[in-house]
């Protein structure tokens, strides 16, 4: 590994570790995400759970509901990684010390780990509360991994763009629709296949391609957005 690559990697790891350290001390995003996820999970399970939805409806409706819960939980916490840097005026120090692409990679790793951790907590709980059987657990796990990463990557890219604007929250919502819609459609389709015991089909390669595209787009676009 060249010294430039190892230095880039060390910067990204430093940003990732710093974000987690700050988060574990303030617990802002953790609380926001967990509170939203658990509340919606309880509301959904009490109205559409084993007592509210029949088997045929469950396969159609419940995968979509799971991804809606994950989407809004992510929206409640992930944008903060970038927005907080602007609001706390720490962005200038970062601009003067970190290569932009390494900063984006560190923030993306933080967002992805946060969301995958949330999925590890929410998904088993969701399946249990909804009494939802998963005949293809491997496909279900792969969908959660690829979909969760894509959701974090898409949200990080949008948050990075929106953090530089004045109407940050409005811009995040406006940009999130076109960027995250393909991901959600693919993730829901794959989750339905896992729940119905069907093969992944072309949706899984498409989801992986989406993940790769958003990651590359973020790494390439972020320096132009971040620096004047």
């Amino acid at each position, binding site marked *: 590994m060249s010294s430039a690559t190892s230095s880039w990697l060390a*910067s990204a790891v*430093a940003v990732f570790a710093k974000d987690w350290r*700050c988060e574990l001390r*303030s617990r802002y995003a953790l609380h926001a995400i967990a509170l939203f996820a658990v509340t919606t999970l309880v509301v959904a399970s009490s109205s559409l759970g084993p007592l509210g939805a029949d088997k045929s409806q469950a396969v159609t409706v419940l995968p979509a509901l799971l991804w809606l819960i994950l989407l809004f939980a992510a929206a409640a916490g992930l944008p903060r990684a970038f927005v907080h840097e602007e609001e*706390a*005026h720490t962005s*200038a*120090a970062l601009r*003067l010390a970190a290569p932009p692409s390494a900063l984006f990679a560190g923030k993306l790793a933080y967002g992805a780990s946060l969301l995958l951790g949330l999925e590890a907590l929410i998904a088993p709980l969701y399946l249990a509360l909804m009494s939802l059987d998963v005949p293809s657990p491997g496909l279900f796990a792969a969908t959660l991994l690829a979909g969760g990463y894509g959701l974090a990557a898409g949200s990080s890219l949008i948050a990075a763009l929106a953090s530089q604007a004045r109407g940050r929250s409005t811009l995040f919502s406006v940009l999130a629709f076109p960027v995250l819609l393909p991901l959600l459609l693919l993730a829901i389709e794959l989750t339905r296949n896992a729940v119905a015991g069907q093969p992944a089909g072309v949706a899984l390669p498409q989801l992986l391609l989406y993940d790769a595209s958003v990651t590359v787009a973020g790494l390439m676009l972020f320096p132009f957005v971040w620096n*004047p």
Partner: protein
Amino acid sequence: MQSVSMSFTGLTRRFGRVRALSSATAEVAGGGVLVVTGSNGAGKSTLLRCLAGLLAPDSGRIEHVEDGRALPPEERRLRIGWVAPDLAFYDELTTLENLTFFAKLRGLPPRRGVELLERVGLPADRDAGALSSGMRQRLRWAWALLHRPRALLLDEPFQNLDSEGEATARALVAEHLAAGGLAVIASPVPLEVDGVVCHLELAR
């Protein structure tokens, strides 16, 4: 320390209809200080932000040369040392954790942060969020010198410092200049600084 120089010509920057900086021109070489003065709103901070690469000027040219090579903006941004009132750190981290984080970003050993905290007289284990305004200013100084920059951009660098803190900061500037570095200092009031000093008065 190798040679360093900074010059700028016709720098202009507008914010909407307000012209914050108008045709600023000056130059400073290693061992020298450029003192930029002017009333509030004259564009001192805007000038320094442009020189740091934190703001793109609408027109004009900036040349930062180190070892005979003109640095592109993205490299200039990572090379300069910057002290300014709006420079903030992570409240959840201690002073040492803040400096260690930025040292890691710059590929420096964490020991450098310890040295600088001792030099500016700050406790290593105090949360940045619990620092007084004078202590925050000392932390800004430590942060700015972390990577041993050859060009220091100092916006009201002695603000909020007590007499001991100001003496330390002035000693740091003197050492920096003696080692061949340059400094651009913005101040709303005339400032006495040792060394080869040029002045630039900005008008509103």
